[in-house]
C-alpha cells in the first residue's frame, strides 16, 4: 500500500468531485477518525488509519485488498470508479437519476438509460455531469454520466440516452473477478 502521488490524488479528487462536488471534503474530514486513500497495484483504496496500520504489516505483494476499493487508475493515468465506491458516494450525491422499475434491469445489465426509462432527475443537472442512479424506491443502483441537462431531457426523444452507464451493482455478479 503506497500513498498516492500528488498528481494522482488530484485526478482522483477531480473525478470524485464530478459526482459529489464539494462533499469530497466530507470523505476526508470524518468525525470517526482519519481516513485516507492508498494505492495498491493501481487500485485506490479508501481506508481508515486503524486498518491501514494493520494492513501495512503484510508484504505488499501478498495483500489483495484492504479497506474499500474506490476504483483504479488506467494505464493512461485516468481514474475509473468502481461500483464498490457506491456506498460511500451515494449519501453525498449531488445529482441523481431515478429509474422506472421497467428500466432498472436494463441498467443493471450495463445499458445506458434512455428517456423512456427515466423516472425523475435532479434539477439543474448539467450535461456530462456525474450522476448517481437510483431505483424509484431510492435504492442506489450505480453511477452514470448525464447525457443531457435536465432541461434538455424534457424534450428528448423517448429512445435517446439520458444517462450514460458507468458502473452498476450488477457488476458484483457480472464481473466479480475484475472488481478487485
Amino acid at each position, binding site marked *: 500500500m503506497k*500513498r498516492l*502521488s500528488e498528481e494522482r490524488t488530484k485526478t482522483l479528487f477531480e473525478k470524485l468531485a464530478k459526482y459529489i462536488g464539494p462533499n469530497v471534503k466530507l470523505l476526508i*474530514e470524518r468525525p470517526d477518525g482519519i481516513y485516507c486513500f492508498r494505492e495498491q497495484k493501481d487500485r485506490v483504496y479508501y481506508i481508515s488509519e486503524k486498518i491501514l496500520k494493520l494492513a501495512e504489516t503484510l508484504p505488499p505483494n501478498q495483500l489483495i485488498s484492504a479497506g474499500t476499493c474506490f476504483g483504479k487508475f488506467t494505464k493512461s493515468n485516468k481514474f475509473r470508479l468502481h461500483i464498490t465506491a457506491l456506498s460511500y458516494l451515494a449519501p453525498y450525491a449531488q445529482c441523481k437519476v431515478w429509474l422506472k422499475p421497467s428500466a432498472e434491469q436494463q441498467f443493471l445489465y450495463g445499458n445506458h438509460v434512455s428517456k423512456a426509462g427515466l423516472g425523475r432527475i435532479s434539477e439543474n443537472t*448539467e450535461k456530462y455531469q456525474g450522476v448517481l442512479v437510483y431505483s424509484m424506491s431510492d435504492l442506489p443502483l450505480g453511477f452514470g454520466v448525464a447525457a443531457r441537462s435536465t432541461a434538455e431531457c424534457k424534450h428528448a426523444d423517448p429512445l435517446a440516452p439520458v444517462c450514460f452507464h458507468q458502473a452498476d451493482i450488477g457488476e458484483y455478479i457480472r464481473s466479480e473477478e475484475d472488481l478487485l
Partner: protein
Amino acid sequence: MDVVKTILEKSAKEAEKYKSVEVNKLVSIDLGALLAEDLNPLDPGALRSSTNDYLLNLTRDNTQLLFNQIWELPTERIDEAIVAKLPKQKFCLPRFKPVPRPRPLTKWEQFAKAKGIVKKKKSKLSWDEQLQKWIPLYGFKRSAALKEKDWLIEVPQNADPLEDQFAKKVEAKSEKVAKNELQRLRNVAKAKNVKVPRFGLTNPEVSSAKDLQAAVTVAKSSTASLGKFQDKLPKEKEARGVAAITPGATRKRKLPPISGQNEKNQNLNLVDEVLNKRPKINIEKAVARQINDEQAQRSDEKNRTGRKKGLRKSGGGKKPKNTNRPRKGKAAGGRKRR
C-alpha cells in the same frame, strides 16, 4: 599362487609370536578404492578414558580387515613384486565442484529450438553444372571456384551503370561477416552475463517511440540544473530504465511517511485546489439555466391561458400545474424534480 601360500604360512607361524590378525567385525570394505568403512558405533566409555589408544586399536583392527581381504584377491608377480588385482571401485566419491552448467544457447539456437528447426547436414562437395566439376561448400578452393564462376556480373536493370558490381559484392560480403561477428560477440556477452555498453540513440528513422521518449528524458535532465526548471507537458511520462544514462537521476524512492493528520491536511488542500479550479463562468450551466427559465416561462404562460380556457370550458375543475417554477437563489443540485 604358491609363493603367496608359502608366505602366508610363514607369516601364520610368525603370527603366533605377534598380535592376532583375525578380527571379527562387520565392516563394509571397498577393495577397488582400498577403503574400509566402519559404521559400528564407538564405545563411549573407552573413547573418553583413553582416546588415542582406543582409536589406534580400532584403526589397526579395521586396517587388518582390509588387508585380509586384499590377500584373498588373485595375485601375480610382476618384476619381483607381488601385485594384487583390485576389482572395480564401488564407492562413489562426490565431486569437489558442482557439475559445469551446459553452455547457454545462442540466440539462433534458441529460435531454432522454439521453431523446431533441425540442422541438416550438407555434403562438403557439390556438383556445379556450370563449371562441370565438384566444388567445396567452404574452405580450400571454394573462393577460387567462385571467382572462376562469377567472372562476369550482369548489371541489374535499374542499377547505376558506372557502379562497380564486384566491389559491391565484396562490400556486402564483408558486411555480412561483420554482422556475424557482432552477433557472435553478443551471444558471448549474453552467455557470460556481461553488460554491453549502450551506444547513443540510433537515427530517428529507425528508432521507436520508446527510444525517443528516452532521448527526451535524458535531454531534459542535461541542463546545468539537472532539468529542475524544465517545463513539463500535461501528460508527459518519464522514460523508464534510463537512470544509468540520465544525469542526476537516482532510483525512484517511495514517498516518505507522514502522519495521518498531515496527510489529511494535504488532501484537504488538494480538494480545495480542485474545487476552486472550476471556471468562474460555467457556460454549460448558464445555458441550461437559460433554457430552463424559458421553458418555465412558457409553461407558466400556457398554464395561465389554459386556466382561462379551462375556466371557460369546465368551470375550473383542473388543478394548475405550478411545480416547474425556477427556484432562484438556491444552490444547485440535491433537489428532486418530478
